[in-house]
């Protein structure tokens, strides 16, 4: 999947937003400081990427043993941890399997879909 264009697009949107705010403030005659702009500009890609999580949702068809095996394979979790997550999916309807940067999270979701699990990428709220 191509990811860079979207990320560039997000940055571009932020730049436009910042520029628009400064312009609007100037027009309204208010005083603006440079700090907020600098803060935004110095945010790294990693910062932008941090709050994402991989969520697996319950599915009555997939076997519990199969789901456990998939968690072990995809995330390298030991059997006990994989089973804990599987049971959480089963009893609570969903489980957060992993959280971190966006790019690896997308790849995990893709792998889970390859095993036919119901998985989504969600921003940490």
């Amino acid at each position: 999947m191509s990811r860079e264009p979207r990320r560039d697009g997000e940055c571009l949107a932020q730049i436009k937003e910042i520029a628009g705010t400064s312009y609007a403030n100037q027009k309204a005659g208010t005083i603006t400081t440079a700090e907020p702009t600098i803060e935004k500009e110095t945010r790294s890609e990693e910062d932008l990427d941090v709050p994402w999580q991989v969520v697996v949702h319950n599915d009555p068809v997939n076997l519990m043993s199969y789901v456990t095996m998939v968690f072990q394979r995809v995330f390298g979790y030991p059997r006990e941890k994989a089973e804990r997550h599987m049971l959480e999916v089963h009893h609570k309807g969903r489980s957060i399997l992993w959280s971190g940067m966006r790019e690896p999270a997308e790849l995990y979701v893709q792998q889970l879909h390859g095993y036919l699990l119901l998985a989504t990428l969600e921003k940490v709220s």
Partner: protein
Amino acid sequence: MEIRRRNDKIELSELDPFLAELLRQIPTSADPSGALAAEQRLFSSPTNGKETEFRSEWKMYVEPELRRLFQTATQTVATDLEQLNGNEKSLANRTLCIPAKHADAWLSALNQARLVIAAKNNFTETELNDHFRSPIGSRRDLSLFQVNFYGFLQEFILRETAS
């Protein structure tokens, strides 16, 4: 039917014509074509709905890859199932040998078939957990039996490949 691990193979022997036919139907059953619910289940959304750009990129780049992955698995299974197409008498019991290296393809194809059948029939969780439902009195009952039979095979393959 007997099922056992024999060296680098999983052997299904004493397959009666009914079970042999159910096995033959795995590749066809795994095909979601023409059933929107089944298509949506195999190619489910990667987000909870808000990121339209990500979803459209997913459709463009990831879904074709997933489709190829699923088809490769069902093709491997279809090739293994050719063992059941011999010239023996149609009512004779058959034996099917699954090479251990094909285990992942079988797990995927069986899973695809189970998900597609369940989506097409809109089975409830209660129905799916009713493993003692009998006898088979309708097409729906037969589909449920098929889901459970494929699940049993999945369990066996999982257990044997894990050990």
